[in-house]
């Protein structure tokens, strides 16, 4: 076998199952690739001994004929998922030395199905960011470079370690989370596939909370089929998360390659922003043409409250974050910085432990929830959120099966290029993705080709609640029509 890291997750699964390759061999190939790719800074914590032990156990189960659906497949885990006995940092100094005594439900589901953990992937601190530059463990470098330019490109965020590791073949697939676009934007920036399932599809238990009414877990992979395989294992009911839905998990892989003939695809005019780049507009038109060629019916729709989604998000998400992050007080776990009394201890701990983006969002959240401002900001934002959701409800009620939009307003940018002077500049990255979290809908980002600067661009499909299957069928249709993207060859390898 040539390089096992070049296999898709589906190919690796078949090779391991047919004993063409051992799980140990497959895992070792990925661990070797990780050793050579330290300069990308994808992993915060690598777990090679555990990976090899898990792979060995997989090979034993395969020998006994007891293989699970992900048997022996090495994956990366976003360092927001608590992993029993393995340091979990949320890329924050405040959790620098936190080792959970429990396992998140979603990662436990992956191990139940036989997957192998390679390590914990870098991210924006507490998943707050769109470029992975807010990590206390340093930024992740994308394996992609602009044509004729060696500038370090961001892999998107917050799941930037996940997207970069998948694109650089440092794992077969990765877990990620999405609160405003943190799965789909990094996938779009790295030429990978990322799906945020319907709110409630995956358990949030054991995943460090950012904004609980918006957070969802999902996979980032190199193909649509791989995403379908991973999501099936990740999803499912969990009594420990009251918002997780008690409904059977379909065989998503069966939807990959299914016909999309007659599916009605809505194209929302409000997403055609003033000043949208010609390249993004052309990509979107191309996506429409691909789906039309595949037999789908295209309809123009209106989602009139779209433009209010991002401002609404920047009230609701910080409000929930300020509440969720109140637990980091230097008492039960994490960093403690002493003070003259307990209040000063709290204040010093949180000032030192949180990075500047997290401090900013906690303060905005505190402000919009504070006495005298709660109705003007928070309650009003929750009303606007109702209107955003109603827009989608009406489109789906009128017979639309899915909505097609660009995933991001631009390609990836270089480190330090955005948001230094004005935080809002960085927030605008999520303009196309954030509506989906507002309405709790499933959304997938799938590669659409390369821009003139040589970096990938993604298309987004938004589906009805719990209709991830339609998204997988449509995403697969785009994947097979789009020009094949060759992932970058490893310029980053250290000898």
């Amino acid at each position, binding site marked *: 076998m040539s390089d096992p890291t070049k296999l898709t997750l589906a190919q690796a699964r078949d090779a391991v199952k047919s004993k063409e390759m051992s799980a140990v061999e497959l895992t070792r190939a990925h661990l070797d690739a990780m050793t050579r790719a330290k300069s990308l800074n994808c992993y915060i914590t690598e777990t090679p001994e555990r990976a090899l032990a898990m792979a060995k156990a997989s090979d034993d189960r395969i020998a006994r004929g007891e293989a699970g659906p992900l048997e022996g497949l090495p994956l990366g885990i976003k360092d927001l998922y608590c992993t029993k006995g393995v340091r979990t940092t949320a890329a924050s100094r405040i959790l620098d030395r936190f080792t959970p005594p429990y396992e998140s439900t979603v990662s436990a589901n992956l191990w139940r199905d036989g997957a192998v953990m390679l390590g914990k992937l870098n991210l924006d601190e507490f998943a707050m960011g769109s470029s992975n530059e807010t990590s206390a463990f340093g930024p992740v470098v994308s394996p992609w470079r602009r044509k004729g330019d060696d500038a370090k490109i961001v892999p998107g965020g917050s799941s930037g370690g996940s997207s970069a590791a998948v694109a650089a073949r440092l794992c077969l697939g990765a877990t990620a989370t999405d609160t405003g676009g943190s799965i789909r934007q990094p996938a779009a920036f790295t030429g990978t596939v990322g799906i945020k399932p319907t709110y409630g599809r995956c358990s949030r238990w054991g995943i460090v909370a950012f904004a609980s009414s918006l957070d969802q877990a999902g996979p980032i992979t190199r193909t649509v089929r791989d995403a379908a395989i991973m999501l099936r294992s990740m999803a499912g009911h969990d009594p420990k998360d009251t918002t997780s839905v008690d409904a059977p998990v379909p065989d998503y892989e069966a939807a990959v390659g299914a016909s999309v003939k007659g599916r009605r695809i809505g194209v929302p005019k409000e997403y055609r922003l003033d000043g949208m780049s010609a390249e993004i507009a052309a990509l979107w038109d191309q996506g429409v043409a691909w789906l039309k060629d595949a037999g789908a019916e295209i309809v123009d729709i209106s989602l009139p409250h779209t433009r209010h989604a991002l401002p609404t998000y920047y009230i609701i998400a910080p409000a929930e974050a300020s509440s969720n992050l109140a637990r980091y007080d230097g008492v039960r776990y994490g960093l403690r910085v002493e003070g003259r009394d307990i209040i000063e201890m709290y204040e010093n701990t949180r*000032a030192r432990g949180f990075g500047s983006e997290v401090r*900013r969002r906690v303060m905005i959240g505190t402000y919009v929830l504070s006495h005298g401002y709660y109705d003007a900001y928070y309650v009003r934002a929750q009303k606007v959120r109702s209107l955003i959701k109603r827009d989608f409800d009406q489109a789906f009620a009128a017979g639309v099966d899915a909505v097609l939009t660009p995933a991001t307003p631009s390609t990836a940018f270089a480190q330090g290029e955005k948001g230094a002077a004005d935080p809002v500049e960085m927030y605008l990255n999520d303009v196309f993705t954030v509506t989906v979290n507002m309405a709790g809908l499933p959304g997938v980002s799938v590669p659409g080709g390369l821009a003139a600067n040589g970096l990938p661009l993604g298309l987004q499909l938004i589906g009805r609640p719990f209709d991830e299957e339609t998204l997988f069928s449509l995403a697969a249709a785009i994947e097979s029509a789009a020009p094949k993207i060759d992932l970058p060859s490893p310029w980053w390898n250290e000898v």
Partner: protein
Amino acid sequence: MSVDSATVRRIAHLARIAVEDAEVERLGGELNAILAFVEELSAVDVEGVEPITSVLPMQMKKREDVVTDGGVADDILANAPAREDHYFVVPKVVE
């Protein structure tokens, strides 16, 4: 609405985040930039609209009122920055 230095300090204290004097002005500017960005919501017509409580129609789940977990004091204390026996240790609160 815009925040002044006194408000920045009040919010920071409510959020239990210490701020240096030198940071106050910059923080105020950043908070004002975000508040200016969300200001457009005040013009949205929300007359008669209910604030969202859940994105999906969902029955509140209930379970039997029984103990399902516990007896893991060592685990709970394992990550504490300061502990004694089975207690978290904090600075003196009551004189």
